[in-house]
């Protein structure tokens, strides 16, 4: 691969001018004449039978156009689909209606939709709808939900177990029997709320004359939404256009299909008017997916010199009240496959129970499954180090897969593409000045101050692929990506990508790739995304896959363009194509660089088509669907340094060092930004954020007044650095950077805090490590 001028450059983002001047195209900015506003009446009860819905008062209000209940839509809207049907797990997918019909199963379950002339009136009308419920006992805890006598959500999901997924790789039983050291723990990986700053919403416009549905919505994957909307409404895909240009963050929460988009579409068709729906933050908190929420039982087998020989995990994953679009795959494949992490662990046994409870459905949240695996493993590594009196850095070094062994096939069957784990650890130790820090830790302890140093040496699977693997895992879609490169007669280029960035900066990164490939100015390149009418089918942006998969599709399509352009250039230069070279946007005859045509001249010629080489069609446009041969596996080492105030339990951050290896980097500025944001979210899980329910299923952290999304003052500055181990999986050698920070940081922070508390004999506290939890643990030890 030719490394040319823009690959590796921190090009300023082309998205920014519109976003810093208030001219972004977010969904709620779109206005259509005659639009009605929809608001959803949601259940305040976690589990109840709907006895009666009286909407007569609401219907009679001035400005109210219609009120729909679940019953009204049974024939007009199919249930919300589940698209990850994991095999061999006795999976049960209960019916999930956009508006609940007989029963509500979580606080926030929608029971009626109001449509009115403006938002204020719609809200007024919600209050006028009278719903009579027969309240049923609720169950929130997924482990207790599986026990006999627990309230049952569905008749056809006995013991609330929607699936039991197994992955038994290697011989754990012998590892356990022969282990010199055995560690067993119950770990909680608590529930989080994604909190994209832009809540979800949609503007659906059905034209009864043409039968076309156009829907602007907050989507990470417009084509997937088009497919699913077609499935639930019965409107053919060819008649649906989904547009999601600027999307205000997603973190996984804008992947699934939800009731709001479905209802807006169905009701627009019913009334023949545009319907806008936008959720409030409170709705976002109760009715947009949550993430994580595992109860994990872990057994770790090791030798006395610190070599891990096997790991066994039994996990109860809380799926919430219904199975969201990708939910079964998250706590199973995306979790279980990664349980040996960066280490050569030969026996991995995983059993996952997917459990339905009276809570908001869970699904993919930044990292999705991999943070749950990494936290578990990195916490256990620290516990093992403690048990053996080893340095946490050294126990990791001891267990790393050596760099000579790549590509490396894990016990769970993944093939790690490339890696040099020790290099990231070494670099991080150097950056943090480890030996000095340990000395300082000793000194401070003598003064009654508690400094802690925490490690996380993670590896992540991203660039999820290939499609055949997706099929084997039961994912109801492919994992490829598409791109069309359209060269216009002037030589300017439009690139249509199936990826759909919502903050990741692909309009810039992809343009850098194309500019390099074609040797044209970056300003001549337009990246188009987020409109199903303009783009071949695309899979969207999630799972740190856009560059590795979507970027590759762009490069491949560009190369096809180049190939055709070379033929045209050769024809114009009257030489054979083999005799033409292409450099810096010029086609020239090898050995005679003055005999040349610019890329723009060739583009013009392709459209004039006055004289084309034989067998070459006019125009200059190519499409490529790229299905990668493998996933990519970024890795790295994060070290967090904290000080804990033992009197109050308050944690302050001293330093945060991240050394990641995401392969080659197209735009370092953007990658750094991804890492920063990722760290912030993972750090927040360790100390600030948690979704708390009471035992009746009421969400106690239902607003930003109780759910602590970190503010600027609550985060440290991040020292980020990189090593570079390219992946052989794609022509860029790039791996993926969207989730590394989140995956790595939660255990790094937790390990730092536990390390700080080690003088008290504390070796574990479940996350989130809130001040009170820390204070209590210290109190208990102080007696």
């Amino acid at each position, binding site marked *: 691969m030719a490394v040319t001028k823009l690959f590796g450059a921190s090009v*300023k*983002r082309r*998205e*920014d*001018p*519109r*976003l*810093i*001047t*208030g*001219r*972004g195209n*977010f969904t*709620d*900015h779109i*206005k259509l004449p005659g639009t009605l506003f929809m608001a959803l009446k949601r259940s305040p009860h976690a589990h109840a039978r709907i006895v009666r819905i009286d909407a007569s008062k609401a219907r009679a209000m001035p400005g109210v156009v219609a009120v729909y209940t679940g019953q009204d839509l049974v024939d007009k809207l199919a249930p919300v689909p589940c698209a990850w049907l994991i095999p061999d797990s006795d999976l049960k997918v209960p019916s999930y209606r956009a508006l609940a019909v007989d029963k509500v199963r979580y606080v926030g379950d929608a029971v009626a939709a109001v449509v009115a002339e403006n*938002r*204020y009136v719609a809200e007024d009308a919600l209050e006028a709808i009278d719903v009579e419920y027969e309240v049923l006992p609720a169950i929130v805890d997924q482990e207790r939900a599986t026990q006999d006598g627990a309230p049952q959500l569905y008749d056809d999901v006995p013991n609330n177990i929607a699936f039991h997924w197994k992955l038994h790789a290697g011989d754990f039983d012998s590892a356990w029997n022969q282990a010199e050291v055995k560690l067993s723990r119950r770990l909680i990986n608590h529930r989080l709320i994604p*909190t*994209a*700053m*832009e*809540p979800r919403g949609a503007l659906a416009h059905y034209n009864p004359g043409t039968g076309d549905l156009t829907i602007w919505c907050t989507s990470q994957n417009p084509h997937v939404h088009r497919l699913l909307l077609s499935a639930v409404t019965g409107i053919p895909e060819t008649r649906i256009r989904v547009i999601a240009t*600027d*999307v*205000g*963050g997603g*973190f996984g929460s804008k992947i699934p299909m939800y009731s709001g988009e479905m209802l807006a579409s169905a009701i627009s068709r019913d009334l023949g008017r545009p319907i806008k729906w936008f959720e*409030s*933050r*409170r709705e976002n908190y109760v009715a947009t997916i949550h993430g994580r929420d595992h109860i994990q039982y872990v057994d770790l087998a090791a030798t006395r010199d610190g070599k891990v020989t096997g790991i066994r995990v039994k996990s109860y994953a809380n799926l919430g009240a219904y199975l969201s679009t990708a939910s079964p795959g998250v706590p199973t494949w995306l979790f279980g496959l990664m349980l040996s992490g960066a280490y050569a662990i030969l026996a991995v046994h995983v059993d996952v129970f997917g459990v339905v409870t009276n809570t908001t459905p869970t699904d993919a949240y930044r990292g999705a499954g991999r943070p749950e695996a990494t936290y578990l493993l990195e916490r256990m590594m620290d516990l093992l180090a403690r048990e053996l009196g080893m340095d946490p850095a050294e126990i990791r070094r001891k267990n790393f897969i050596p760099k000579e062994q790549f590509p490396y096939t894990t016990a769970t069957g993944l093939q790690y593409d490339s890696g040099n784990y020790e290099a990231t650890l070494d670099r991080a130790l150097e950056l943090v000045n480890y030996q000095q820090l340990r000395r300082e830790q000793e000194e401070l302890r003598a003064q009654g101050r508690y400094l802690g140093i925490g490690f996380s040496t993670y590896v992540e699977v991203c660039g999820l692929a290939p499609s055949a693997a997706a099929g084997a895992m039961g994912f109801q879609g492919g994992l490829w990506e598409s791109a069309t490169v359209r060269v216009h007669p002037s030589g300017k280029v439009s690139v249509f990508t199936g990826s759909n960035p*919502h*903050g*990741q*900066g692909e309009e810039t990164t992809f343009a850098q790739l194309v500019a390099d490939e074609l040797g044209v100015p970056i300003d001549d390149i337009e990246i188009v995304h987020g409109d199903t009418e303009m783009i071949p089918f695309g899979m969207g942006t999630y799972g740190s896959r856009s560059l590795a998969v979507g970027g590759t599709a762009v490069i491949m399509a560009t190369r096809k363009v180049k190939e055709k352009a070379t033929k045209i250039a050769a024809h114009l230069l009257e030489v054979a194509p083999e005799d033409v070279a292409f450099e810096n946007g010029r086609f020239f005859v090898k050995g005679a660089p003055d005999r040349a045509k610019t890329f723009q001249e060739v583009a013009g010629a392709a459209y004039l088509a006055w004289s084309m080489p034989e067998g070459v069609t006019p125009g200059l446009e190519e499409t490529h669907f790229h299905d990668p041969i493998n996933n990519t596996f970024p890795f790295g080492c994060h070290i967090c340094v904290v000080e804990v105030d033992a009197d109050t339990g308050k944690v302050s951050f001293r330093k945060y060092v991240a050394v990641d290896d995401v392969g080659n980097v197209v735009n370092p*500025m*953007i990658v*750094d*930004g*991804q890492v*920063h*944001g*990722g*760290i*912030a*979210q993972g750090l927040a899980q360790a100390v600030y954020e948690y979704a708390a329910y009471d035992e009746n299923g009421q969400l106690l952290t239902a*607003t*930003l*007044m109780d759910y602590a*999304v970190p*503010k*600027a*003052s609550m*985060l440290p*500055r*991040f020292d980020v650095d990189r090593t570079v181990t390219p992946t052989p999986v794609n022509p860029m050698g790039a791996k993926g950077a969207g989730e590394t*920070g989140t995956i790595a940081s939660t255990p790094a922070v937790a390990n730092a805090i536990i390390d700080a508390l080690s003088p008290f004999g504390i070796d574990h506290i479940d996350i989130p490590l809130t001040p009170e939890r820390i204070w209590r643990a210290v109190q208990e030890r102080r007696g």
Partner: protein
Amino acid sequence: MQITVKVNGVAHTHDVEPRMLLVHFLRDVLNLTGTHIGCDTSQCGACTVLMNGKAVKSCTVFAVQADGAEITTIEGLARDGQLHPVQEGFWEMHGLQCGYCTPGMIMTAVDLLQRIPNPTEEQIRHYLEGNLCRCTGYHNIVRAVQYAAEKMRA
């Protein structure tokens, strides 16, 4: 009730319901959609505008309260096609990703720099507490404000 509000230098007179929030007045009546809504409890600051020169959350002000006031929104910050130094800082330092919190973040930073032309990192972080960003971890937002501070002092 009839109100007159000067927004980005232009006086607008409209009849509004008393319950209409300033942010809805800006977005829905004046079509200035650069001011965003990110929460309903006045925490996130996405809706921040300048009212009589001070940063306020336009979701926590009724339009009638702004009667007679001068409002600057993100659309009115750049002058004569020239980005405000804070806008420039956000672009230069990659202070935004999805861009949803950005208008509010920028408006707050403008108020901050009016008060403290040379803020420390700690002051920047403190003064931005009323604005949540979910993408950047604030690292580059701090650098963006530092960039702007330096530029404005020059």
